[in-house]
């Protein structure tokens, strides 16, 4: 059994809304092992970004952790003080790259300076400026930016979207993090550039043995990248499995329906859709969240919410259909 570096246990997160609290994440159990790429997929509003932010404790003030714990290398991150968390974990042990590289770089500083700053604050022993600059140039070279000495002195607006995302990757990997949270890092990029970035990411993971939580809504991207996949629906994880297994034999009705929506699964016939819409946060249905849209739903689904249960080795699903199978 590979060593688990992150363990999320029974996590529930709520947002304040008009005096009451809305449950955004519910009953989340998830583990990430060392060197593993875990893909987290789900439709918009399913809570996947909230989960990513919770791990880095970046939630807004209006949110609160209702219950549960996130253990990073055995330590509950909610027990740490903000100062300690900032110094030890955020940006050091757990790094994050966000969706829009445009917003992540400061437009009035040179790209090199921004990398330099990260190096300066993260190196434990104070090095000479000259050495740090050399290191920054090396990092730029490593992520595939041509002519790094020259590029070092350029501003973010002189970089293309793909190059900016490369810079973000470079910054994230400076501290050699154990876990990288990638929140849809390629949505704003072109197809060929997306493939380049994901190829780079795969190579960096192999080199640094970093684990990745890759958040995306594109099943194709996740399929080509991750070892395991977790599917989220309305604030809950409904299925976790090895990526090959998930695509070959999806268990949860939502995963099954989602895969059938993909146009590449079928040619020319009518595409399947999922009836209805993702339920509104303010009025989740009774019982299973997917119950109103599920074609298999029966009495029990309307009363209870199923937990994520093991249905096969390394395959978990939250559906009552499986429990009946066992009996």
């Amino acid at each position, binding site marked *: 059994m590979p060593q688990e570096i992150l363990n999320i246990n029974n996590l529930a997160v709520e947002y304040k809304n008009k005096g009451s609290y809305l449950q955004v994440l519910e009953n989340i159990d998830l583990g990430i092992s060392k060197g593993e790429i875990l893909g987290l997929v789900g439709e918009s509003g399913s809570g996947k970004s909230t989960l990513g932010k919770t791990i880095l404790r970046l939630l807004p003030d209006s949110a609160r952790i209702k219950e549960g714990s996130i253990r990073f290398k055995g330590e509950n991150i909610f027990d740490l003080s903000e100062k300690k968390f900032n110094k030890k974990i955020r940006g050091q042990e757990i790094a994050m790259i966000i969706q829009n590289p445009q917003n992540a770089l400061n437009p009035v500083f040179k790209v090199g300076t921004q990398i330099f700053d990260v190096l300066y604050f993260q190196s434990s022993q104070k090095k000479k400026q000259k050495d740090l600059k050399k290191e920054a140039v090396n990092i730029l070279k490593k992520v595939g930016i041509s002519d790094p000495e020259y590029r070092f002195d350029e501003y973010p607006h002189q970089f293309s979207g793909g190059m900016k995302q490369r810079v973000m990757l470079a910054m994230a990997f400076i501290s050699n993090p154990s876990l990288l949270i990638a929140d849809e890092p390629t949505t704003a990029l072109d197809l060929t550039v997306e493939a380049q970035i994901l190829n780079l990411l795969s190579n960096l993971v192999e080199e640094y043995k970093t684990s990745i939580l890759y958040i995306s809504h594109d099943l194709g991207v996740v399929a*080509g990248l991750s070892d395991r996949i977790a599917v989220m629906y309305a604030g809950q994880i409904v299925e976790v499995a090895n990526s090959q297994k998930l695509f070959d034999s999806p268990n949860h009705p939502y995963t099954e*329906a*989602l895969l059938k929506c993909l146009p590449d699964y079928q040619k020319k016939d009518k595409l399947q859709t999922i009836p209805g819409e993702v339920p509104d946060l303010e009025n989740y249905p009774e019982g299973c969240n997917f119950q109103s849209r599920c074609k298999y739903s029966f009495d029990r689904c309307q009363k209870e919410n199923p937990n994520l249960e093991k249905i096969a080795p390394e395959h978990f699903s939250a559906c009552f259909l499986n429990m009946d199978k066992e009996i």
Partner: protein
Amino acid sequence: MELVKVKNLKKHFVNNDGFLYKIANKGPINVKAVDGINFEINKQDTLAIVGESGCGKTTVARSVLRLVEPTQGKILYKGKSINDFNKNELKEFRSNAQMILQDPKSSLNPRFIVEEIVSEPLYIHHKIEDDSNLLDRVWELLDMVGLSKRYSELFPHELSGGQARRVGIARSLALRPEFLVCDEPTSGLDISIMSAILNLMKELQEKYRLTYLWISHNLHEVKYISNKVVVMYLGKIVEMADTESIFDNPLHPYTEALFSSLRGINDDWTYKNHEIVKGEVPSPIDPPSGCSFHPRCKYSFEKCKKIEPKLENKKEDHLTACHL
């Protein structure tokens, strides 16, 4: 029978004003957004234009609707050049050819309710004889795109992304057009909603005999909806063929690279062992000499650097621009 024919279309954007350029006296900058393309769309067909951002696909779409005037070349609609239309002909053309805009939310007026949004084209084109029938027509249009009557009273901010997209489609259909330009109609939508919109578009096409010019960078979607695919790179067509033929057997190295990320999700294929094209799309201000793809192409040889390949028929109705 062809409905739209594009003949040697060129659109160059010239930038020669600006104070600094005048001081530096550099001469005008010529951005060749679209540089000499030819294609035709048959009636009731769907022609898809794919390509990365900056390749000129949106400029083609805008030219086809005469939203920008081409620098050179002609666009024929039912055999008549749309650039020579007089005022009345143009007005008729405007009601026959409609566009579905990219961003579903920002293309709806936030101060209008759905009823006003959908009926606005009817007012502009004086298609309403009697105000009492108006609401019926709006309901009929909403019904066509799968929305119930109650949506006619909502404001755009009350709609979800998929619903806003449907309202946009209803508005485009209000004048009973024959030709629709769809500029990335499913971008930003979730998978399940995307498939519902694709179904709707296909259903509408069959029912009302619509012709689509479909612009997208989602190849799965293109494979599903189109009959014919045009691949553009830096303002030029690099490959054009029937959907099946181009997906089964892409001939141009760029198409090959673009489609290689489109393996089925059941394969063992991963990004790690994936061979990828180098570099990024060059700037159209200063395109490379010879074949514009040669700096990124793994097969490129001497000839590619000097001579620009012409779009030629390599197989039956499969055109490509490559020296190989």
